[in-house]
């Protein structure tokens, strides 16, 4: 009974703590409801796809795929090329995805092979692999681009003639997917009309009288994310998805049932890497600038933290966890610095606090998972021994 209660608390401790923190921090920050909703909607559109890409390796029992930064790097290389070629708008984005896909597939296959050699410690290996490929990525982008790989646009290159600048403007595709179907929620005008927002007409989806402003909805991005969710639900039911779930339960059993374990694990990582590549492109079209040497690093850390805050564990994650995580994590992201400033008079503390929380949450989630797994193993051993044993 007490153990069951403990399990329930352990399973939901992280989201509960975050709801509590937010409940305190939101009033302290003094932000209006419409501002918060707008920010959250933007961030859901920006981050969900990246986080969703983590689900499939978890299903296959490979833990959190810290190697998703590989996919993010592939996406960034695609973006650099379309910037160089000056291809704008939706065609640019599609082309970036097309360039990124083969790179992501190759990196994913590599990552899968490496992880198959390190069974049982996939997470730390994929984590270090991210650093390793980061080194290779830096070598390619900083030394080979503009020298061996043709990049000619002077806006991209460093003044020395080769190597890409630290910050690349993505103005040509900025917000292109978010604003593809311009839609707003407003407090002032009636639903079903058109409203002039930012030089274009936007369709008013809903009228909510209590709002004190206009909220723009990244509808096209949300549709893409929705389609992706449908894909995941469908994928779980396919033969391949079932195989992955079987492997996630027990590799040995899956193997004796005739499932090609190593191959399926590689496929899971490849899918994740390719999706992370698309996710990073969606993320960056919203941000509008590419930090050539840092964007991908943060992508991995923040996505994993968000997923865990949403109540997922290393071995179990659902689509609901993704959205709960995005909302809770980014709510804290928005309010923590201001709350810290209003509370202690130092915005820097709020900033450090949220960094601490992101890392702390990952640490706690990993500890809880390992702890529970060890306890279950212990219990299983005890049940095998039966009641005749002395202990």
């Amino acid at each position: 009974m007490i153990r069951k209660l403990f399990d329930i608390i352990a399973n939901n401790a992280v989201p509960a703590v975050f709801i509590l923190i937010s409940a305190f921090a939101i009033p302290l920050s003094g932000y209006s409801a419409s501002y918060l909703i707008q920010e959250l909607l933007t961030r859901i559109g920006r981050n969900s796809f990246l986080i969703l890409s983590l689900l499939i390796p978890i299903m296959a029992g490979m833990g959190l795929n810290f190697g998703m930064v590989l996919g993010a790097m592939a996406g960034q290389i695609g973006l650099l090329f379309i910037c160089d070629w000056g291809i704008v708008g939706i065609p640019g984005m599609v082309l970036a995805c097309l360039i990124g896909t083969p790179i992501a597939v190759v990196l994913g296959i590599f990552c899968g092979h490496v992880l198959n050699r390190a069974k049982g410690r996939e997470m730390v290996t994929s984590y270090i692999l991210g650093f390793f490929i980061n080194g290779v990525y830096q070598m390619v982008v900083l030394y080979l681009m503009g020298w061996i790989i043709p990049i000619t646009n002077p806006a991209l290159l460093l003044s020395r003639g080769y190597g890409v600048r630290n910050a690349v403007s993505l103005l040509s595709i900025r917000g292109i997917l978010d604003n593809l179907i311009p839609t707003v929620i407003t407090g002032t005008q009636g639903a079903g009309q058109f409203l002039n927002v930012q030089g274009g007409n936007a369709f008013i989806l809903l009228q909510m009288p209590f709002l004190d402003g206009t909220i723009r909805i990244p509808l096209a991005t949300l549709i893409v994310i929705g389609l992706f969710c449908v894909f995941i639900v469908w994928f779980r039911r396919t033969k391949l998805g079932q195989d992955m779930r079987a492997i996630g339960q027990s590799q040995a059993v899956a193997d004796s049932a005739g499932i090609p374990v190593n191959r399926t694990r590689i496929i899971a990582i490849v899918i994740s890497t390719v999706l992370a590549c698309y996710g990073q492109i969606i993320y960056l079209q919203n941000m509008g600038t590419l930090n050539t040497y840092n964007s991908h690093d943060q992508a991995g850390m923040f996505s994993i933290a968000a997923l865990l805050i949403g109540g997922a564990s290393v071995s179990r994650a659902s689509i609901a966890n993704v959205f709960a995580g995005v909302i809770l994590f980014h709510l804290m992201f928005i309010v923590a610095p201001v709350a810290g400033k209003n509370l202690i008079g130092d915005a820097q503390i709020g900033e450090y606090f949220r960094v601490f929380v992101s890392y702390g949450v990952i640490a706690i989630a990993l500890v809880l998972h390992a702890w529970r797994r060890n306890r279950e193993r212990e219990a299983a051993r005890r049940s095998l021994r039966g009641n005749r044993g002395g202990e």
Partner: protein
Amino acid sequence: MIKRFIDRAGWPRIIIALFLLGLFIAAPFVGVRVDTSLSNTLVRFGMNGVMVLAMIPMVEAGCGLNFGLPLGIIAGLLGATLSLEWNDEILAYLIEMGLRYKISWLTDTFVMNWREPLGFASAIIIAIPIAAILGWFYGKLLNRVKGDEMMIATYVGFSSVSFMCIAWLLLPYKHPTMVWGYAGKGLRTTISVEGYWLHVLSDALAIDINTENIHLYIPTGMLIFFAVMAFLVWVFMRTKTGTAMTAVGSNPDFARASGVNVDKMRTIAVVMSTVLGAIGIIVYEQSFGFIQLYMGPFYMALPAVASILLGGASVNKAGILNVIVGTFLFQGILTMTPSVINSYLQTDMSEVIRLIVSNGMILYALTRKVRAGR
């Protein structure tokens, strides 16, 4: 014979050693002095040696690579900053003790002449209990998560560093050389140890040849300090406790069957690793000249982990020789690549090479087929 040597050393190590040798050979041709490079390598060897040494107990006790080194580093940083904060008080206290207990040699001239080494010693003495306490909790945590130590260690390191970022801002440090000038509170990001214990080990007994043809600097004191620490660890690993620890790392079930308290041994190993990490960062700082706070210790575990692996350690086997060889190779490459490759290619590729070599090495160790069961 050669084949056996290759088998024992492993290909990545040989390639990197040859690469380093090549760099040393190429150096004179691109106008880089071999003697200064060698001096730099030795200095960096001494700076990082103890932190690499901190890997041994945890690896031997089967806790994996200590990615949680930042925890020990934080204890060291606390010791270092507190020794600066209380420097005057500590010295005054020592003089008072000398008077009160009639210790004839403990006079004010002695204390004043030796105030730098005394300050350094006080940093270490403050750091050790902090490290031991942190390490004890850290060890208890790692005992509960057997099998996942490395990933959790990484995030314990990260979260403790980011937690300390808040603490550095809020802790009531007062010393004017350490806090931000305009606010009068909150520690600076880098604090100079000049005037306290800058180069106190490095310059002790240092060999400094500076003539027309040769510029050689050997930080003898720092190397001796490393040798003493290495010897202590070596002796410890051969005591009863040390042997039991190795047994736990090699085969926990067998160790338990022979009456070894597995969890206790692992805790001792983690405490030792954390304490060595704390001492290591103080040695590093006295040579480097600055205490780096905030995000400074964030990635410090990776070079140390890479060094010991480069020296031939695996995820569950490591010795003193691995530390010495690995630190020398790793720091050698770090010193040589910027100077040699920069002069040759006119660009700074050292950072990229460091990333690829260090992480490639860790990756190699993680994916090596080790004995089954883990």
